[in-house]
């Protein structure tokens, strides 16, 4: 039972019964509750309305027969998934790429935002900002094609390496280069767009703080460390928590397009497997079950991360 403490209330909390407090709450802040209505309506209609689709995971769902006519199979799909030979490979591949993204791709927009923040010329800052977020809009199909042009055996990168006397590196087919390539691709495509949220957070930092620190003799580095970063701390932690929910998700398009016979052992992730089995093979229920599994794991991670954040004194997502 949550405690309802209205800071503006002069009531003596211990003496008032719970129900009366709630009622008083509602009357005082009825506008807030009214403001909730559109949102609540939305979630009920469009998020919880379809929620029964989760149950497909426990059925042998035939899309034409529909929900009521399809037969129930309980946990059969989950058992099949856990027992399938591909299971451990898929989990490892998915988790590794996800973690690499958290370690490398997540900080990239933060660093970029910090660097941009240090720029003094307003027009330069704006121009750079506008340019670096363009790749976000280029579809993965194009990105894959361009990556191929860039990294293939006879392409510019390998030609450059040859000039310096290095051997040709088979970027596209080598197992060792696959994961770094995926992470770098992701950074190229998403870092620019990712800076926006951090720049918005930085916009709220009071200029006077910087000025005061200069008076105190702080170097730019110190300013960054003691003013800028703390300003971003909340946002960073919040985004990190939300990212945890996607721990078993990786983009489908990128991995599907960059995967090939030579790197299959590291490029097959859950999303690609689901596509092959579900959309192409028609194992609709099976893939729903896998999706449910991904969601459950994601939930555990999100709640865990949130609890950790509370320990450190942050808001968390609640």
């Amino acid at each position, binding site marked *: 039972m949550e405690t309802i403490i209205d800071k503006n209330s002069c009531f003596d909390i211990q003496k008032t019964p719970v129900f009366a407090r709630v009622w008083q709450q509602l009357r005082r802040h009825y506008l807030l509750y009214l403001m909730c209505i559109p949102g609540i309506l939305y979630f009920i209609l469009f998020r919880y309305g379809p929620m029964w689709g989760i149950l497909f995971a426990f059925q042998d769902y035939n*899309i034409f027969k529909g929900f009521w006519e399809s037969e129930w199979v309980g946990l059969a799909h989950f058992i099949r998934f856990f027992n399938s030979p591909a299971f451990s490979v898929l989990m490892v591949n998915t988790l590794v790429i996800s973690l690499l993204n958290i370690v490398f791709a997540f900080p990239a927009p933060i660093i970029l935002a910090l660097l941009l923040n240090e720029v003094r010329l307003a027009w330069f800052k704006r121009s750079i900002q506008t340019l670096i977020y363009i790749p976000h809009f280029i579809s993965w199909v194009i990105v894959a094609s361009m990556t*191929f042009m860039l990294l293939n055996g006879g392409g510019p990168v390998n030609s450059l390496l040859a000039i310096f006397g290095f051997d040709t590196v088979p970027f596209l*087919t080598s197992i060792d280069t696959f994961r770094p390539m995926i992470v770098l691709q992701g950074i190229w495509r998403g870092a620019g767009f990712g800076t926006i949220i951090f720049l918005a957070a930085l916009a709220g930092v009071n200029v006077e703080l910087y000025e005061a620190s200069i008076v105190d003799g702080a170097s730019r580095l110190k300013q960054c460390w003691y003013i800028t970063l703390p300003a971003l701390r909340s946002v960073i932690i919040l985004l990190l928590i939300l990212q945890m929910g996607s721990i078993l998700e990786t983009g489908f398009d990128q991995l599907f397009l960059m995967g090939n016979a*030579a790197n299959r052992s590291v490029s097959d992730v859950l999303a690609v497997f689901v596509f092959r089995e579900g959309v192409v093979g028609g194992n609709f229920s099976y893939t729903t079950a896998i999706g449910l599994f991904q969601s459950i794991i994601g939930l555990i991670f999100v709640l865990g991360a949130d609890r950790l954040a509370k320990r450190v004194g942050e808001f968390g997502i609640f």
Partner: protein
Amino acid sequence: MQNNTTKVIIGIVVVLVVALGIWFLAGRQPVEEAAIQEQEQAAAPAAPREVTPPVEEVDYTITILTVSHTGEIIAPDHPAILQIEEHTGYNTEWEFVLGANFAEQMNMRFAAGNLPGIVALTGISGPIVSAALGGAFWDLTDHIPQWPNLADANPTIMNNISIQGRSFGVYRQRPIGRNGIVIRTDWLDYLGIDKPETLDEFYEMLYAFTVNNPQPNGGDTYGMTWTGGFMGAFHQLAVMHGAPNRWEILNEKFVPWFEHEAFAEAMDRARWMFDNGIINPDFAALPTGDLRVDLYAGRVGVEIGVSDEARRTANALRDAGFMTQEELDAGEMVWVMGPVANAQGERRSMALSGHAGFVAISTSGAPTEESLQHHLNFMNMINDPIGQNIVSWGARDHNWEYAGNGTVRIIEQPTNLLEGLNQIMMRQNFVYTQADANSRENAIIEVQRANLDIAIHDPSLPFAALSDTWTANQVSLNQIIDDAVINYTMGHIDMDGFRQEVERWYTEGGQNAIDELSAALAAAR
């Protein structure tokens, strides 16, 4: 700094000016490629009925769902549609699904249960099979014999689209003997080589294309482009060497093609080609859509693919400036041939299934027996030479005119205006070919005709839908083998490694598929 509103207004004005500018500067419409229609001459084309017996008009609307690959849609009052309505006596209403969306759209329509009466389906994939078995489409097995134009459909292809032995529609016919080898004949001439007759000569030619500078003005060249995403070229080579088409039946059991020694032979050749630079070294990673970039850029000498690729290659070379329009019309530079002979002297062409899905009648669009009869009537009337040529070429005497001897002459380029309409073409053998074909066109026709005599079919097709494992897993299973072939070609694994992957194929569903398919075969006998 100007205020917000001014900025917005200026922005809008700039955009409008630029757009208008482009509009005016662009001038005439660009020359659009003609919607090049396919030809198949399995049977001599029936003589066209010059006079159509009057068809009584029925006050009933047939709703049709078909596929548009470009997004352009034929106007509802297009003369072609009007002619169809005249020919069948029914009113028609057309709906279109974008090609890229077909799989998802179909799922939604199945779930909603609101399909139109006539539905063009692009394949026999898992979702479609389960929908059909679940009752989404009428089982027409007993009805088809009662309608003359449906009953005379090719029984092999009808068998190939059957689901658990039942027929749910009429196939969308595609040439069975469509595969072919496209060759740059100008390179042959320049090097003084004859067209290859045997596999050995074929490989020698490829080698020559790679190392002997077959182009007058130099430039790097190589034999063939492959892509890891689609190994059709290798598949055809394997069949040419002597392997069966995916499956063969031995002692009443299905045996996969990679168990045949010719398959290993083809693999060794693939590795030889890779080591000698005859195929592109990055083929494993080449995006599928970029497969023909080098071919169209004039850097590649051969493509093993579909025979009509010769036409597209010629067009592309003309667009790229390697060939003039006259040379293209004269049939120069690009030519197509059927398979070369293997060591035993056999020519083997990997047959296609003969269809690209089928046209079905949905139970939601035709809920009653009576409506089913109407739809069958419509299908029957459209499945004759007149109907099939309207859907394929457009409105007679408006888009095309009959040029005698089973050929047509295009009056007005139908192009994208026919999008969707031609996707319900079912009986390709009724469709006329284009008149004034040049030698290249004739070569394409000839190859496809000759292939029918040497076609090697995939015996699993009629039984595929009866094996749950195969329907659900064939994509993954095929990928295991293709991946292994690719890795072997590149030298990443050797024959032992390949056998290991083959073992994996068996344990991950291959053995189950074999058992189920063989059981289905036994039941049918």
